[in-house]
């Protein structure tokens, strides 16, 4: 179409007219075809409006101040952790990693820290700051719209009510995925650059799975903060509640478990059965915390040497070959934890969904 159009300038006017004729005919054909091709117009329209909402939400997030500030902090932390990891690998990496660990040098970029610098590793940073990203993106998702009076206006448009809450979730999750993956791949790139040692395909796969799990974990905190943003009318209340829960799980929960552990402790001389039961109890309590689930999954994913997440008896170790687990086996090991994380996320989302669908839309009530 483009080529004849260009040459048409030199040709006669009549020929140009014919071109227009053709164009007209094509347009007619198009309009005739369209209604048939649309199939199910109402649903289609609503799904397109869903993506319009997602698009707008992402734009809002990206242009907001808090997102910029948070990104600044995270990028700084990320660079710090890379520097620390690289210097640790350079200084003592070769001597420290004698046997099995050496084969997964690249994964060390994510877990190793230099003892001299006292900067946490990338994975630690992610498990610390990840929840903060989730909370920041979600804590005022619904109540700010309600307080600004945009919720009533929005819901009087022909959109499904659940599309609104889904769009809020999806847009924030897209942002989280982009942030986590770009940071993770950035670490990978910088690692390549500085240590000049390429990752094996398995290492690459492990890193991608690790990043994916991080997205799920941050998604949990996002869902929780969205739930609070529906429940509480004030953005400050919902932000504080989310942060309180985050602090509880990262700091106090461990203390409480320790207290329970010491209170119910059995003596060293007790039967192995009783000791095992005690250990399992503490472990189960620990695993109620999503933070614990996440740290178990990432340590398994990033250190293939981890063979079990609970106590192992000597019986079980008999005949085991001291080698790192394969990717499939590592995945199998963390499958329950991963399922737990996903379930917690789904429960939070389900609760917020139900709560939102039942809530009355009143302007700034």
């Amino acid at each position: 179409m483009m080529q004849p159009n260009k040459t048409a300038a030199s040709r006669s006017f009549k020929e140009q007219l014919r071109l227009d004729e053709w164009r007209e005919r094509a347009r007619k054909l198009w309009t005739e075809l369209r209604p048939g091709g649309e199939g199910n117009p109402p649903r289609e329209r609503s799904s397109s409006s869903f993506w319009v909402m997602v698009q707008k939400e992402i734009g809002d997030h990206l242009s907001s101040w808090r997102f910029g500030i948070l990104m600044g902090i995270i990028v700084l932390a990320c660079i710090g952790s890379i520097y620390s990891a690289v210097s640790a690998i350079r200084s003592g990496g070769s001597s420290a990693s004698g046997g099995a660990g050496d084969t997964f040098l690249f994964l060390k970029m994510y877990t190793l820290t230099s003892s001299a610098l006292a900067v946490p590793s990338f994975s630690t940073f992610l498990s610390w700051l990840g929840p903060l990203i989730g909370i920041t993106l979600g804590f005022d998702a619904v109540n700010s719209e309600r307080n600004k009076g945009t919720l009533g206006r929005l819901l009087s448009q022909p959109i499904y009510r659940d599309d609104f809450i889904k769009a809020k979730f999806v847009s924030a999750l897209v942002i989280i995925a982009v942030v986590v993956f770009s940071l993770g791949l950035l670490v990978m790139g910088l690692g390549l650059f500085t240590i000049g040692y390429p990752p094996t395909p398995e290492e690459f796969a492990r890193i991608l799975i690790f990043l994916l799990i991080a997205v799920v974990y941050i998604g949990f905190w996002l869902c929780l903060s969205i739930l609070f943003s529906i429940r509480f009318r004030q953005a400050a209340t919902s932000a504080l509640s989310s942060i309180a829960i985050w602090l509880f799980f990262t700091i106090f929960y461990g203390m409480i478990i320790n207290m329970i552990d010491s209170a119910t402790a059995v003596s060293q001389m007790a039967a192995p059965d009783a000791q095992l039961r005690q250990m399992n109890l503490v472990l189960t309590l620990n695993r109620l915390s999503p933070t614990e689930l996440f740290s178990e999954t990432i340590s398994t994913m990033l250190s293939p040497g981890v063979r079990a997440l609970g106590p192992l008896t000597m019986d079980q170790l008999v005949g085991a070959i001291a080698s790192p687990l394969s990717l499939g086996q590592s995945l199998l090991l963390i499958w329950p934890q991963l399922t737990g994380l996903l379930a917690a996320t789904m429960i939070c989302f389900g609760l917020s969904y139900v709560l939102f669908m039942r809530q009355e839309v009143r302007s700034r009530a």
Partner: protein
Amino acid sequence: MVTETGMTPTPSAAGERPVIELVQLTKKYGEATAVDHLNLSIARGEIFGLLGPNGAGKTTTILMMLGLTEPTSGQARICGFDPTREALKVKRKVGYLPDDVGFYEDRTALDNLVYTARLNGVSEQEALQRAKALLEKTGLADNAGKKVGAFSRGMRQRLGLADVLIKNPEVIILDEPTLGIDPEGVRELLALISSLSRDEKLTVLLSSHHLHQVQQICDRVGLFVQGKLIACGDIRTLSKQLDADGNVYIEVGAKGWTEELARNISGIEGVRDIRYPQQGDDELERGVTATVVCERDLTAQIAEAVIQKDAELVYIRRKEYGLDDIYHRYFEKRGES
């Protein structure tokens, strides 16, 4: 016509189906009844004013019409659709301006409008065109690129109107559109609404507690108190209902009012009574000396009598009931019963 139950008659031709039809609509919040067996129908192209004090259930009624709240019992039909079952179809045809409309403050007016249009399934190009045309129409064209955060209350309200119109609705519902706008702004907004209704054959339902503002543009009004529609009809009909005793009230303001003059006026055939305003009545402030109760309109005769007695006639007016009076009278009546 003071109906609490039963259908409200519509002035339009009987053949066409009303655009808005509420039948025995009820909403209860626990024990409290917000809307009580409401019956109402509004014809195409009509401007209907839903009047009532705060907390009368106006907003609840509107939310039920849009399917944003489910009625406890009863039914609403908007453009032939049931809002609880086919909310999307209703929302596609109805534009709703909430009483406290909010916009995305850090977006421009144009962005906000385009977003609404896009949510209605309009293509980006078309949305931009419509938004620009509507900003022109509502007098906001110069502020199209400004962030809404910098808008004044009146500008927001006009933007809200543009936002409602961008989906090409058949019905627009405005909840307290004049709230918090200065008198000139109210006048402009109401003029805009009535011209839009006329030009585009829009059905307009607006709720308000500012009676005299709404009075100017409404074809019909409904008085809504404690979840009940206590009266419905055009303003003339409503005021006729109040004049049930058949008397005509004429307010006279005169300098040099004497007993003799009063006697003379009483002597005119058809005059029943002369009432004097009490201390503190607003009639006194308006300069009314006396209100003459007559069987028929005797304005001319009374004026003549005043002038004959060498008193200065400052003011004479046949009293007509505005919505304010209607409103008060209905409350009085309710208080008595």
